[in-house]
């Protein structure tokens, strides 16, 4: 027993999408799997087949509770993979769905989840073309795992890469932050919230359409899921080797979300969105991009939240008071705390 205690094991923070996830990838998976595609470390792999440029992305979903305000694990599983393709500059074409079903899961609940997946995919005219089911004793009838994989066609005139960033570029977000993370935390902890804020879980396909005229000049897109806006932008800052400066006054947070985060002592900058995109574009294009985004109902709250500056990979937040605070990648799942 003593001996086995010294042996490292997987802990929940390995799955938070922050530093520990990165370390696990870099230290355990990459040495075995490494190749040119994987080394790009993007949300999707870019594949060239004959004349066709394809994006290929996979994602697994574990969420507790399975149903939450604004969505459920099924809708999330479709949107998650779709959004990874979209922010990679690709139009989703085909989707796969694989299920690891826990013994004891209610068939009625599973039906609701599958129906929700089908409806989300149908709205996007996205066929689920292959799939798999396995049953496992996962210890809890709510422990449902879904994996989706998507293939998309890369828009011919896009080149999204952190290396294109230059000082002066604008950082845009397509709406409020942290809605999904706060909704999940509140439902998981059974917080009694009047009008529980809904998860922002939604497909981002409209983005590509509304941004069509700007696409060639858009430099980077990401969806701030696990780890939130802070982790996603810090990764970009490090990849670009430039500083990103955020303005706290420009960040929009639903007051309910703010209240939930405050009462649990967690920072909204590290809570996930599942229906927002971060877009980095030149200063000249920024106004036009915002205008285009706001024409779409999902993009009404779009705003410029910061800019790219010369530097070494810092992510700085200019605070409401006018001071600055440095932001790092998430380290450890946000937990309710007393201090």
């Amino acid at each position, binding site marked *: 027993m003593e001996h086995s205690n010294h042996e490292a094991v*997987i802990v929940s923070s390995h799955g938070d999408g922050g530093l520990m996830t990165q370390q696990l990838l870099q230290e355990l998976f990459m040495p075995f799997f490494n190749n040119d595609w994987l080394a790009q470390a993007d949300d999707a792999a870019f594949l060239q087949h004959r004349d066709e440029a394809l994006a290929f992305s996979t994602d697994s979903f574990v969420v507790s509770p399975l149903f939450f305000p604004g969505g459920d694990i099924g809708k999330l599983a479709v949107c998650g993979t779709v959004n990874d393709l979209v922010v990679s500059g690709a139009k989703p074409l085909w989707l796969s769905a694989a299920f690891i079903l826990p013994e004891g899961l209610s068939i009625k609940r599973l039906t609701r989840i599958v129906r929700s997946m089908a409806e989300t995919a149908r709205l996007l005219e996205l066929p689920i073309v292959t799939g798999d089911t396995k049953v496992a004793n996962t210890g809890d009838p709510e422990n449902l795992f879904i994996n989706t994989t998507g293939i998309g066609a890369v828009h011919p005139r896009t080149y999204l890469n952190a290396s294109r960033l230059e000082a002066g570029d604008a950082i845009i977000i397509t709406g409020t932050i942290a809605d999904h993370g706060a909704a999940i935390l509140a439902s998981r902890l059974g917080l009694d919230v009047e009008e529980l804020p809904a998860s922002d879980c939604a497909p981002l396909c409209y983005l590509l359409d509304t941004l069509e005229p700007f696409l060639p000049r858009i430099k980077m897109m990401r969806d701030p899921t696990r780890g939130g806006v802070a982790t996603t932008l810090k990764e970009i800052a490090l990849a670009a080797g430039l500083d990103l400066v955020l303005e706290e006054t420009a960040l929009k947070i639903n007051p309910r979300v703010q209240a939930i985060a405050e009462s649990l002592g967690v920072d909204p900058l590290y809570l996930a969105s599942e229906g927002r995109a971060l877009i980095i574009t030149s200063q000249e294009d920024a106004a036009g991009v915002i205008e285009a985004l706001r024409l779409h109902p999902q993009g009404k709250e779009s705003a410029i939240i910061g800019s790219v500056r010369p530097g070494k990979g810092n992510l700085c937040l200019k605070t409401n008071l006018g*001071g600055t605070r440095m932001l790092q990648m998430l380290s450890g799942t946000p937990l309710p705390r007393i201090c």
Partner: protein
Amino acid sequence: MVSASKKRVTNLMQEVLRQTMDLACEIVEKKGRRIVVMEVCGTHTTAFARSGLTRYFARVLELRSGSGCPVCVTHQQDIDYIVALASLEEVLMVTFGDMMRVPGSVSSLEQAKARGARVHLCYSPLEALSWAQRYPRKQVILTGIGFETTAPAIASTLLEAKKNHIDNFTIYTTLKLVPPALRALLQKQSFNLDGLILPGHVCAVTGSKAFDFTAWQYGLPSVVTGFAEPDLLAGLFQLLTMIKQNEISVRNAYPSVVREYGNRKAQEIVEQCFAVTDFLWRGFSIIPKSGYRLKGENSIFEARDRFKLELPQAGELPGCRCGEIICGTSSPLQCSLFKDLCTPSKPVGPCMVSAEGACNAYFQHLAEAT
């Protein structure tokens, strides 16, 4: 209307900020060095860093962290005991989130959980009682960690357990008192210190009177301060005013919450359950009369007594300077492990884990990429 008053608050805060900076510059000119102020409370360390004020004033004012992070000052021996208890077959451990990732000598609670231990996070200690009622065959243990602010809640939870005859419930008590540690810290203080930011929420329970000694015994201007941005600014502004005028006293810049004698009712409930005792702190060793133990018939609720474990003596964490950092004698930047070998995802010591540990605050909010 609301936005008009909001705007007025913003403008006033900008004005306080400007005047605070002017004050700081004046003092620096006179002293010929940076002002050093200690914020006793870890929540202040984090709040100042998050508000941007720490970096804003960095040129003229050093904010140094003190001993006020309950996770950080918990001795290695206690961490090890809690992890060992959680690993017992019959135990269901209920803890605040802050404790989950603190490294013990062999394992953290998070790692113990991954190996099958039953560890549940709580927001309120009362949740431990619900767990105990739901699982009558389990032994539910609450980690009773915290300072004067948290002690009343732990005490009240204990009284509820007694009232409802919940017998499968115990507390691992590591509740500590801030003033004795602050005394110990100020006694061995080996650096310039110009003033103290006193912990507003501890004072909400103890009253500001409990900290009078910082002025009359140690000659330090001190200000009881709250945690929202206007409170932080108000506290800092007043402290610098006092430093400039050489006013040695304890002021209360958080009168909306802190009264002179604190919350009597909360104090009574604590006295009903606990006796003051000598306690082992990380960084200090034993500080006389610095902690609480369950007293009288309540002691049957002490987890240490119900589950007597023989554990190997907890060693120091090699190279870790958390002890010195807690005492304010070292800054995180002086630790050779900081940022390279000790990070929030691979923490060596507790100050890097706790959201309000000094090392964590430096790493998360202040450190620049190099």
